[in-house]
């Protein structure tokens, strides 16, 4: 898989490239700012991009804007956005928009297996949402709503769904059987009043839309 990187910090840029190459990805370019990123995007036709949210010259949300531009140029182009801090507003904005998007804390990169799993998921059109964002969305809710009707296990499953994991991965992560997870998901959708859908992007959207309501 061909990856393009946009990260201004030299050490992180080189580290990311090294990590991806060690894991069998092909790093087709590493940009230090948005302009270079767009140039390389045109020239090298990568399959997926890993973009730092803060890029020169202003170090605000250039990465986010660069990602949006890239997706305007190449609709559905998968982008994994990395950030030093979590901002649920950014995250839900990104996710509600389309397929193949991820928003992770930079810290996750160190958990190589999980990071690679998330990147692969995004590259295939899935979603990867940082657990921190999800727990923010789940925990920051004070009004007594239907979430209270969920059992702890169902809350766990809901969180993993929001992060963008498919059924199989949820089974693996929680050590449950496929029918058991299916049952939990059914119960969650029932209690929250959502229409059940497949394990793809639509489901994440439904869950996030609910959490954001």
């Amino acid at each position, binding site marked *: 898989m061909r990856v393009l990187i946009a990260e201004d910090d030299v*050490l992180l840029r080189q*580290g990311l490239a090294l*990590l991806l190459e060690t894991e069998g990805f092909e790093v087709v370019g590493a940009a230090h700012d948005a302009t270079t990123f767009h140039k390389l995007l045109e020239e090298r036709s990568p399959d997926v991009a890993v973009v730092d949210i803060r890029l020169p010259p202003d*170090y605000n949300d250039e990465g986010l804007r660069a990602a949006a531009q890239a997706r305007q140029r190449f609709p559905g182009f998968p982008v994994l956005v990395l950030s*030093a801090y979590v901002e649920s507003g950014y995250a839900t904005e990104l996710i509600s928009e389309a397929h193949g998007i991820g928003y992770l804390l930079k810290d996750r*990169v*160190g*958990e190589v297996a999980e990071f690679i799993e998330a990147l692969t998921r995004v590259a295939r059109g899935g979603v990867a949402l940082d657990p921190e964002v999800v727990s923010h969305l789940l925990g920051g809710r004070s009004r007594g709503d239907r979430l209270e009707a969920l059992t702890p296990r169902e809350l766990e499953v809901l969180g993993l769904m929001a992060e963008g994991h498919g059924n199989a991965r949820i089974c693996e992560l929680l050590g449950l059987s496929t029918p058991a997870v299916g049952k939990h998901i059914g119960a969650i959708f029932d209690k929250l009043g959502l229409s059940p859908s497949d394990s793809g992007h639509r489901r994440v959207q439904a869950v996030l839309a609910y959490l954001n309501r």
Partner: protein
Amino acid sequence: MTVRAARRVASLKPSREQLVEALRAMATHTGYAVRVASGALLSWIVLCGLVLAHGMALLLVGLPLRRRLEATLDRNVAAELHRACRYLGLSAQSASRFSGGYWIKVGWSGVNAVIGLGIGLLVLVLATGIAVSFTCPLWWWLLPPELAVTPGGYPVDSWPSALLTPLVGLVYLALYVSLVPKAARGHARLARRMLLHADKNGLLSRITEVTASRQEALEAHGTELRRIERDLHDGTQSRLVAVHMHLGIIERLLTDDPQRARELIAVTKDAAEEALSELRGVVRSIYPPILADRGLTSAVKSLAARSAVPCTVEVGELGSLPTAVEAAAYFVVTESLTNAAKHAAATEIGIRIGAEDEALLITVTDDGHGGADENAGSGLAGIRRRVAAFDGQARITSPHGGPTTIEVRMPCVF
């Protein structure tokens, strides 16, 4: 009352000093009253001019005329307030607190035009009365009978009537002595009340100052928070993320490529060291540890010792200072030293720190080429902001050719 005042002047026998003192006081009152009268005349002119200028606003000449008149109005009102404050024995500072708007000034000028002119007439009438009454025995016979003066209400046309007029003069004198100081003081008080709103407006302008200083404090604080956030996120945190990431790679490489893993350990160690040194830098910039350990005096001395340009330090008795003021003072000295070394090409710097009237005074002088520009991205604007946040003042003088002097005064009591 007039009799009492007349007695005070005429029948009591005051000592020489008392007399001189009384004369001096009368001179002060008279001086104030005369100036008030001339100010009132100016008020008339300015007000009539403003009415005219408003009328001529449609013509092009109206506007420049109005501007000039408004400038005169400003000057006139400021001068009057100043005079009133001085006359009342208030500090010049209290006069400078005036922050009234255009209409307050116009309103005052209207009042002053009437009252001031009245006071002027009072002085003129009484003074003339005194002069005529006391001197007319000397010259009444020079006038033809139909032009006889009447200082006492009766024509002076015979010796008996002429010899009585000095008694009338005493009445005029008594009136003068009792009325002129009262009128002058009344005018000054009115000026103060109208222009400074007694103490209310003074309080108001003080509140304006405090609000501004609070605003500066918030801005300085905001800038500082943003800087710290940037330093921590883009510096320290980035380094730690790199450490974490490399450890992740090393973990994966350990079995397959231990040689490569070992190489990466060196990179990781460097990144960890950088993270630590950046963290130290951020902490130092928030609150220099040396301040916490040794206090401002030692901290400044150590700054001077480390300075690239030779530095002399004079520190007076400082007492205990608020922590925030200490940190700001340290910042001022650091920035001043950096500026002197970087922009002024100085070869010698003098630092003086002292306390006076519950304020901290810092003076940094260098012998560089001067011409420091506050707007050219130097640390000077930063100094001003930081000092203003504490309701303090920074004065920066830097003529071309030097020397540059930075004087800062920060109150230590809030």
